[in-house]
């Protein structure tokens, strides 16, 4: 097998698309894990003082988890398009690159917005620690960050759904 064959084997359209899906889930999930972690640290501090705030803290901590879910959804859509579960389809490099590119918006926006959202939610945790009844405001400001992750998800999903082999 020549070097060219190996290159073609590795960078087949199918593999590129599958890599795109994996990369999408990877980035978004790392971002969410970081975001949820940031809030979790802040929440533990508050819960040490006032365990009754667990419900509110849990909610705020769950917010940056959305991006991971979005990344998962986009990845799953790419998997279905390339028929991963039915043994796969033949794709040319262009099609593979198309699907890879589709995943990028939610991959990157998911990664960065989850971390930002985590920071806002952690600040929200501080807020509810100091004042009662402010959880609505904390949630709202944190959710504003998520808007952009959802827009990115939309930009990722629409071309995937439109894609026909």
């Amino acid at each position, binding site marked *: 097998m020549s070097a060219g064959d190996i290159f073609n084997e590795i960078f087949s359209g199918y593999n590129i698309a599958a890599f795109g899906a994996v990369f999408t889930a990877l980035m978004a999930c790392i971002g969410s894990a970081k975001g949820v972690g940031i809030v979790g640290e802040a929440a533990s501090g508050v819960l040490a003082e006032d365990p009754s705030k667990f419900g509110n803290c849990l909610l705020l901590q769950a917010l940056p988890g*959305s991006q991971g879910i979005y990344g998962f959804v986009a990845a799953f859509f790419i998997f279905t398009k390339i028929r991963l579960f039915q043994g796969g389809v033949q794709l040319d490099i262009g099609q593979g690159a198309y699907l890879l590119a589709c995943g990028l918006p939610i991959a990157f926006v998911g990664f960065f917005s989850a971390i930002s959202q985590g920071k806002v939610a952690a600040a929200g945790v501080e807020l509810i620690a100091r004042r009662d009844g402010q959880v609505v405001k904390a949630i709202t400001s944190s959710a504003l960050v998520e808007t952009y992750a959802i827009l990115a998800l939309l930009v990722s999903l629409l071309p995937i759904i439109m894609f026909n082999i």
Partner: protein
Amino acid sequence: MAISPMKKLYTVVPKKGSGRLLKALQCAGCVEVISSPFSEHTSVPSALTEKIHKTHFEMEQTERAVQFLMEYNDDTELGFGSSRLSVDDLEAGLDIVASEKVAAVNELQNTLYRLEKENSDLEVEINTLSPFIDTRFPIPAFNTAATSSVCGSFPSNTDYNLLLKELSKLACTVSLIYEDKYSKTVLVTSYKDDTEKVIGLIHSNGFTKTHAKASENEGFARGKIQYLNERLAQNKREIAALKKEASQKSRELLQLKALYGVYASRLERLEARKLASTTESTVVLCGWVPEANTEKICLILDGLECAYSLEDPSEQDNVPVLLINGRLPSVFEPVMTMYSVPLYGTYDPTVIMSFFYILIFGLMFADVGYGALLFFGSLLILKKAKLGYSTKKMLRMFMYCSLSCILCGALFGGYFGDIHNAVATGFLGIETAISPALWFDMINDPIRFFTLSLGIGVLHLVAAMLIKFYILCRDGEVFSAFADVGSWLLLFTGIGVCFINLNTGLIISVSGALALILTQGRHEKNLLLRLAKGVMSLYSIVSYASDLLSYSRILALSLSSAIIAGVVNTLATMSGFSLLGIVLFIIVFTVGHALNIAVNLLGTYVHTSRLQYLEFFGKFFVGGGREFAPFKYSSKYVVLK
């Protein structure tokens, strides 16, 4: 399905009758006593403040005794809320006898803690002494005419041999007494002339003098250890006796719990009395009564010597909120109040929310097996365990949701993931892909499930907008209702119709957009600004789109739990159909699915709640209300009546 209307109660009662009035109101348990408007001009009698302090102290003492005895109580009959007692009977004679018992229990508790503390000190002392057990010299240091000796230890990282070499230059001996992983215990003896140098050298090498102490009179280390051990055993015997006494005393637990109830209720009453204002000969009490309870309260007040009035709340009042819902929706109230209690006079969405909550929960956790486990698990805990009120509500909520999980599982073909296929392929060797789904298989057709998720989202969002529409109409702002909500609905209907008939759809949506442009800037005076604001309002379509897409999490959560379940099934059936295979199947199946349920149940709960809070409540909900906290008997350990 509503927020109960409230009436403001004012009563004026002669000073003498105030106790009876408070008792009667506490017994009724449906009035929230608030600070009287005249309290600025009157002062709290000092006798009352003193009484509050005293009762508070007594209550705390009783609680301490109750908590202590609960550790020694193996009789579950006396558990939470199992007994209903009458306060009047209790108040009559309980105090004196029971408060003596409280004192005795707390005395016992103190002695027990003292002995336990002493024992742990003794154990530490014995441990530090034990390396020296075979020595026959006073510890930690002793002198003869020409020498001085000291006991102590080096940490394990000291270079012992090097140190010995250096010490050999001085007039001293070092004898090793005991050695373990962490340290070397030694006796250093030196001639008095060199003592200072020796001490300086060993200290710079990490030497620490031992904390152990034993003199000749005590029989050196061995004698002292023996003595300490005797004391330890003696204390242990005493502790055992005290514990036995405690478990005997715990038979009186119910009585002490009742006493706690009496004190706590008395404290509540005194606090209520403190909120009332006292004039020269009367007491003025002020409070909130739910409208449904007004008759009951009137009846009580008519029987007492007092004047009263019931009024509607005014604009400035901070009215407490009591939610009135049916049996099913009421279990969803905690979900809402965790977010916020609705403001008095606004809308209580519990009923509509509970419908969507059950629906979305079912879709996110769509599995017949998991649903059934959740149902019977909740049922079992509800029946067997003694639980607080809010935990019971929560479990009942999960029970309702689990029914929806079962239904959705049947619709989309989830039976512990795909256990039917896994068993067929793994055990029987049949390659099948039968789908037991009544509607369609979620995993094979995720795009369809995605559309369904967004469809549920549309329903949820439209419901929220209709509620907003209703609230605006109810409050008499019909124009706002049509302009702010109606035109958006028109726009979205148009977009929906576009899929059926492009032209009609376009006409409808454009007219909706025009309505928005024309109306959204109506509060501006400047005509140009008004138009600009109208156009800007169309930007909100972004937020609606993001709300809608957020429902894709329904797909994500249900898929992830179904896929993980599938992986568990594949692993469980991997070893084939044999004895070992079946044993492995049972283990992997149980552990794997238990983990999957634990993780995904939490995820489902959080994300279903999130969809309610952000996407649904965001459209209309006005929070910041205060929960109605009626003045009643304490029900912490026993239920009083």
